[in-house]
Structure formats: structure tokens, C-alpha cells
């Protein structure tokens, strides 16, 4: 399995190296084969261990879903980026494997959300391609985002010390996951119109308001994510180093203040600095995670051989530790590389975009994506203090899945748009 994921990752980067379309297609086809093999092997092991016939059924459903997703997508949109589709499928596939191992019921729920989200977001590339008024309604995005966040702040339920979710008729829902996207749209629309000082100031105010609400709801990871995204987008839009430097200084100051004011933040930082000192209490989660990663080693203990459930919130924020424990450090590194591959793809799309609005959106969403990956993986491995962010496409959680789908499909839409234009040019 490790070999397969290594092959997959290799193909992923190989893809960039080939200039001609045909060989790229070949790489993608091989990627598909590798993915289905990993999938098959993993579920075979799960079935042998549990001997639960439902697993087979579940496996069948997943295969149908992935096949349908990969092929129908291509059928509907001719110029789709196969690499992105493949990577999304692989990440989902690994997520489902590890979730099935941790909790079958949760995996099934995840799968249902996944399938629904896939269908729902199917249309996004189409919308991007045909509705270009999207760039006109900047304030609308800002208002929606703020409203959603404020709603959570006032009404939200508290989990693990942070107010993140709204509960509507028993279904909990995390608006901040979607506000990430409206936020990027908002910033892109504002800077598309103008990058003079007034706009920048106004946009900064709204962006700061986003971050403040998140910090007030104690969602520090979210706050940090928005902050970095905004700062980077600002820099790209204006090319002014001063904004970047000033932003970093302001951010550092704000982080220091947050550390002084919130005990919640202090807890996380002390737990990060020396988790062993308070192993039973504050350091519990991170040390359990390190035990998991350390015991798994390079090659992993194998599915059902570890104890991932020892780690609190393993199916969400700490899923990377579970992957590393049972599937191995190499496997986990490959997942990381695949995420980076996605990010590079996003950046290439951003670079090729002519329109500032789309360029900014592609870039902003790419930063949102990769920052999230960095925060969660860094937190799990004790590289940085844990911030409580999910791993896109892999972690359990309906909102996270849906928003990641939207994110990927928007980028996909931009890619398709670009390719269609290129083809038009060639024909014209």
C-alpha cells in the first residue's frame, strides 16, 4: 500500500514534468489504477478484520461513486483537470478508509455527505463559466460572511472550547467553513475594482472584523487562516511589500495580545511547548498523537493494529495522526505531498488567469487550502501549536467536506474556463 501511494505521488509530480497532453493523460490513468488498488486492499483488510458484510456493500458503493465521479465529470466538462479530480478522489478515499476503521457509522455518514456534496457542487464550474457577474457583488459576500459568523458567535454551540457550529434541527453545521470561500470572493471582488488606499482600508476593516469575530468565538485556527489569506491576497493585489510587512507585524502583535488575554490560547501554547510536563491533562491530546505517530513509524502498524481512538477528536483534527499510525509515516508524507501538489496546481491556475478577479480567487482559495493543511498537520506533529483545523477532504465533518468540494470545484471551474478560452483562441 505504501508502494502504491508512493507511485501515486510520483505520478502526481511527474505530471508536471511532461509537457505533452498524452503522457499527462497516461499518468492520470495510472493514478486512478493506483488509487483503486489502495482502496481495494484497504477494504479487503478491513473486511478480513471485521468480517462485517456491510463493509463489502459500503466498498461497492464507494467504487461506484468514485468511478461515476471521475468519468461523469469528464463527460460533462470536457476540459477538466484530471489531476485535481484524481487528487480529490484519493484524499477522500484515504479519509473514508481511516474513518471506516475508526467508526463504520461515521464513515457511512461521511460518504452520504460526500456524495451529496459532489452532486451539489457539480454545477459550480458551469456557473463560473457562464455567470461572470460574480465579481460585481463584493459587499454582498462580505455581508453574508459576517452575518454568518456573527450568528454563530451569538447562537453557536461550544465544542472543545470554541464556538464553531450552529445546530438546526439536530444537524450541526459550521458556517465558518463556508465563510472562508465568501471571504476570498469578497476580497477578490474588492481588489478587482480598485487597489487604491480607500478600498484597501475598507476591505481591511471588514477582513479584520471577520478575524475578530472568529477570535471572539475562540476559533483561533480560523482566525489565523483568514488573517494569512487576507494578507497574502492583499500583497498579490497591490504588490506592496509594505502591506505584507506591516500585516505581519500587526499579526504578531495581535497574536501576542491574544496570548496575554485568552487562557485558551495559553493552554494551547504551553501544551505545545512541553506536552510531557502535563501529560494527563493539557498535553494529553498532543502526546497521544505523538505516541500514535511514533509507534506507527515509517511503515505503520497496519489497519486495526493501532489505537487511534486513544487520541481525542481523532476523526477530525487529528486524523493525520491516525493515518500515520496505521498506514505509516511514508504514507502520511505522501498525503502531505499530494496536498502540496494540489496547491501547486492551484497556483499554476492562478498564474495563468488573465482576469484579476479570477486570479485572486484562485490564489486566495489555494492559500486557504494549504494553510489549513499546514495548520492541521503542523498541530498534530507538534511542529506548531495545535489550532483545531480539519484536514480538507480527509477529516470527518459535513461542513468541511462540502466547503472543500466547493473550493475544488471553483478552481476546477477556473481551469475549465481557461482551457475553453484557449481552445476558442486556437480555433479563432
Amino acid at each position, binding site marked *: 500500500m505504501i508502494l502504491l501511494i508512493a507511485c501515486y505521488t510520483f505520478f502526481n509530480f511527474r505530471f508536471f514534468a511532461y509537457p505533452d497532453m498524452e503522457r499527462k493523460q497516461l499518468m492520470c490513468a495510472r493514478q486512478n489504477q493506483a488509487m483503486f488498488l489502495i482502496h481495494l486492499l484497504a477494504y479487503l483488510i478491513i473486511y478480513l478484520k471485521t468480517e462485517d458484510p456491510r463493509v463489502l456493500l459500503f466498498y461497492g458503493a464507494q467504487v461506484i461513486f468514485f468511478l461515476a465521479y471521475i468519468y461523469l465529470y469528464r463527460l460533462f466538462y470536457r476540459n477538466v483537470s484530471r489531476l485535481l479530480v484524481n487528487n480529490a478522489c484519493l484524499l477522500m478515499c484515504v479519509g473514508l478508509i481511516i474513518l471506516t476503521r475508526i467508526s463504520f457509522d461515521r464513515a457511512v455518514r461521511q460518504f452520504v455527505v460526500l456524495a451529496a456534496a459532489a452532486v451539489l457542487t457539480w454545477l459550480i464550474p458551469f456557473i463560473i463559466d457562464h455567470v*461572470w457577474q460574480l465579481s460585481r457583488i463584493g459587499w454582498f459576500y462580505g455581508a453574508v460572511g459576517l452575518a454568518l459568523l456573527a450568528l454563530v458567535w451569538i447562537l453557536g454551540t461550544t465544542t472543545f472550547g470554541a464556538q464553531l457550529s450552529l445546530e438546526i434541527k439536530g444537524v450541526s453545521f459550521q458556517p465558518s467553513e463556508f465563510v472562508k470561500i465568501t471571504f476570498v470572493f469578497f476580497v477578490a471582488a474588492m481588489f478587482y475594482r480598485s487597489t487604491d488606499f480607500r478600498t484597501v482600508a475598507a476591505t481591511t476593516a471588514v477582513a479584520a472584523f471577520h478575524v475578530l469575530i472568529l477570535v471572539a468565538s475562540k476559533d483561533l485556527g480560523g482566525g489565523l487562516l483568514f488573517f494569512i489569506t487576507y494578507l497574502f491576497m492583499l500583497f498579490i493585489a497591490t504588490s506592496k511589500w509594505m502591506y505584507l510587512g506591516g500585516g505581519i507585524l500587526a499579526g504578531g502583535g495581535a497574536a501576542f495580545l491574544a496570548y496575554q488575554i485568552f487562557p485558551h490560547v495559553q493552554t494551547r501554547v504551553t501544551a505545545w511547548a512541553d506536552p510531557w510536563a502535563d501529560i494527563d491533562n493539557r498535553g494529553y491530546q498532543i502526546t497521544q498523537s505523538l*505516541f500514535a505517530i511514533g509507534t506507527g513509524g515509517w511503515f505503520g502498524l497496519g489497519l486495526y493494529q493501532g489505537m487511534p481512538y486513544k487520541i481525542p477528536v481523532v476523526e477530525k483534527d487529528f486524523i493525520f495522526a491516525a493515518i500515520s499510525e496505521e498506514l505509516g509515516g511514508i504514507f502520511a508524507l505522501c498525503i502531505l505531498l499530494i496536498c502540496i501538489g494540489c496547491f501547486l496546481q492551484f497556483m499554476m491556475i492562478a498564474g495563468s488567469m488573465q482576469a484579476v478577479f479570477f486570479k485572486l480567487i484562485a490564489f486566495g482559495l489555494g492559500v486557504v487550502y494549504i494553510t489549513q493543511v499546514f495548520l492541521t498537520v503542523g498541530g498534530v506533529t507538534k511542529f506548531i501549536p495545535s489550532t483545531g483545523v480539519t484536514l480538507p477532504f480527509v477529516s470527518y465533518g459535513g461542513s468541511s467536506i462540502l466547503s472543500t468540494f466547493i473550493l475544488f470545484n471553483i478552481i476546477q471551474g477556473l481551469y475549465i474556463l481557461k482551457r475553453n478560452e484557449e481552445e476558442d483562441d486556437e480555433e479563432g
Partner: protein
Amino acid sequence: MKRANPNPNANRNILILTYVILGAFFGLMVYFCHFLFKEREGVMNNSYNARLESFSERVVRGRILSSDGQALAQTEVGANGEELRVYPFGSLFSHVVGHSTKGKTGLESLGNFYLLSSHGNLLEEIFHGLADQKSQGDDVITTLDVGLQHTAYLALGERKGAVVAIEPGTGKILAMVSKPDYDPNPASLDAAWEMLISSDNDQGQLLNRASQGLYPPGSIFKIVTILEAMRENPEGYLDVHFDCSGVFQEGPYSIRCYQSTAHGSQNLGQAFANSCNGAFASLGLTLDQESMGQLTRQLLFHTELPLSIPYSKSSYNVAAVGSLMERLAASAGGDPLALTDGEVSQWEVLQSSIGQGKTLVSPIHFAMITSAIANGGILMKPYLIDRVQNEAGEEVRKFLPESYGSLMTAEESGKLNDLMVQVVTEGTGSALRDAPYQAAGKTGSAEFETGKETHAWFTGYAPAEDPKIAVTVIVEEGGSGGRTAAPVARAMFDQYLLR
């Protein structure tokens, strides 16, 4: 809808930020690899890691072997699959190998991870997994020498004490004995457990005196005092003469030599060989206490030792160490003896120069200092696990000797070597005088309680010209170091060098 890009730098900047982010990820990945390479085992062996226990459901605990492959601990599997940990040598290795029921100690704890990991044939592993059979855990091959351990064990006999033997050039721990001991075999341990942990039990059978015992060093500490004299006066330190009458009088204080023997007129080398307390007490008064404090730190007093087994930190007479501020802090802590009052500190200096007073050392710490002297001043980190191999005898992991660093210069270690040879050829180390090899060492007879016999110490190595083994011996209430402890070391050297 296409508006010309108003910002031509955008793509370049995207590239820059992409590199920044890639850099961050590179750091993350390097860290992740470093964790898996370096820190992993320490983390895994943490007693809070519940995962290791679960290994024993799939793996039969491996064996612990001596350096020549004799089993020191092994697991016997009965007909019904029940497992029994057996220690064929009984109490011979009780502390260093430890026990694995009633918690894990010694090598059973140190090597826990290896013992519970299986690196067998891959096909066999799969077969075992499918057949629900347990795999055989890896074997831990130690640096311990059964013959040497046995010699130390017999030489100590029923007396309390400890013996540590180290190979100076590598840091391999060859033998480690602590008395009194206990039988680690589960049945005997179960039977004796209540008695062993009872609060009425003052014997401390479970304590590994070799690494966790703290004793006043007595005259073996003169190695440190003379090293300080050597540093302060490299040319003329040996020319200091002292006339010993058996009692050294300094103001109101008197320092006696062992059994008030009068050593007569002697230079410092002779005083070292004869272990003359008066000479060293008066020498101590001339030494810079600040720099003496620094030297003890350099020799790992008050410092973490490079050891992976539990140990106690050695301490040098606290009042004499460090700055005025530290002393004031110590006196604020309610310790009147630590006051900087001239008279009190003079007494402390007299005492600490001959290894009495509040100075305390562990036997393994002095074995480390001794092996550094034997190894040209360089301390090799002591270690117990030489390698790990799977059931079929294929090597899984090899541990190589590691240097801790220099405790002293090669020149200083050479001079100490000459002095310690002199102890054997003309001084208190007479038990080793007629050996067919040239030994070097220092004896000690440390007072610890008025009215009780002194603790007998010997620390040394052989052969002096090319040291193969360094040994530190302490016999509690053994009397004279030369008469009681040196013969134990002699037996060890004979066993190791003449077999």
C-alpha cells in the same frame, strides 16, 4: 470581461509566496522525518504510551541476552499459550536486567519496545497474523559479561554494596551488581513483594545501588582535588610537601588519617598514594573554591548523566560551590551550614577536599570519571544494549559507542594515570600490586556515621598502559577500601584479563 492585468508583478509575487509556503512545508516535513528518525523511540518507550502494552497481545516478549548470547531473561510459552517470564540466573542480574511483572525495571524497561517488536520473516508474520498466532519478539543483546557479573556477585558476597564495570574505550557496561538483591522470577517476586515494598523494610533490595545509590566518596574524591591542584599549578603541584603526624590541626579543627596512621614527610604524589587526609585537607585550603566548583560540574556533579537507566545525581559540597549569591540563596533556604561564615566554610573546605562533608556520589558516576581517565580524558556514554536481533539472529539494530566529550585533557588524564599507578605500586592499592598486569586506581574509606565502620571504595582500571576495563566498587561498612574493595576489583580484573 478581460481586463488587462493592472498589476504586472502579480505572477512574480504569487511565485514568491508559493516558495514561502513550500519552504514552510519543507520545514514541516524535515521535522516530521526527524521525529520519526530520532525522537520516535524515546516517545514510544514512554510509560504513558498504552500502545506498547497492546503489542504483547501479538508478540511473545523477546529474550535479553548477555554479550556472549546466554539468556538472562526469556519467555517460556506453555502448552495452552500461557507465558512465563523466566530469569535463568535468578538474582544475579536482578537490578540491571530488572523484572517485568510488578512494573518494568532495568533492561526490561529500557528495551521494552525492542522486546515487543517483531522483525521476523515477512511471510511468516503474515501467516502468524492470519492464524492468530503470536510472533516472536526481537532479542536484546546486552553488553553484559556473565563471568564478570558472577565474579562481582561472589566477591561482594552477603555484604551490601555495588560494583560497576565499564569498557573505557566504548562505554559498554560489562557488569553491574547491587546488593542486597531479589529474585526477579515472577513466582518469587510475587511471594516477596509485600516484604520488599513494606515500609518496615530498610534493606532497599529493589534499589539499584550502582546507579541510584548516593554515598560520600571519601578518598576516591582526592582524584578530583588533585586534578584541581594540577590545573592551578601545572608545573609544581607534585612538589608540595607535607609532614603527616596522623592528625592535621587547623585552628580548632583536626583531620585524621585513616586509623591515625602517621605518613611522615611526603610529596603530593606520595600523599595521594598513601591517601593522606592531612595533606589533602591542607592542600584544599590553598585551592580556589570557585574554580573547584566549576571542575566538579565539568566532571558531571549536579548534572544530568548521559545514562538511559534511572540514576541519582551526584552533588559536591553545596556550600563550597558557586557564587556568593547561590550561597546566600542556600542559607535563605534554612541551611545554616551553608552560611558563608568564615569558620564554617573553612571546615567545609577541609572536609570536601577529602571527599567527606556533604559531597555525595553514585558508583556509576565515579565509574564514568574513572573510565574517562582511562580513555585519555574522553568519556564514552555508558550503554547496556549492544544490538537487537530478530528470532533468526539477523541484526535489526546496532548501537555504536558514542562520545560524550572530554572531561579533562589527555595530558591531565596521563598525569592522573601515573598517580593512580603509584597508588597500586607503592600505596594503598597493595591488593593489586602482584597482579600480572599493571592496574591503576584509588582507594577510599568514607565515613558516613559516627561509630560505624567506613564504606570501602575502590575505583580503577587495568591494564594501565592500555585500559580494557574500569571498575568501581563500594562495600557498605566494609572498612578499609584497600583491604575490602580493592580485592573485589582484583577479582574482576583477573577474571576479565586473565581468562
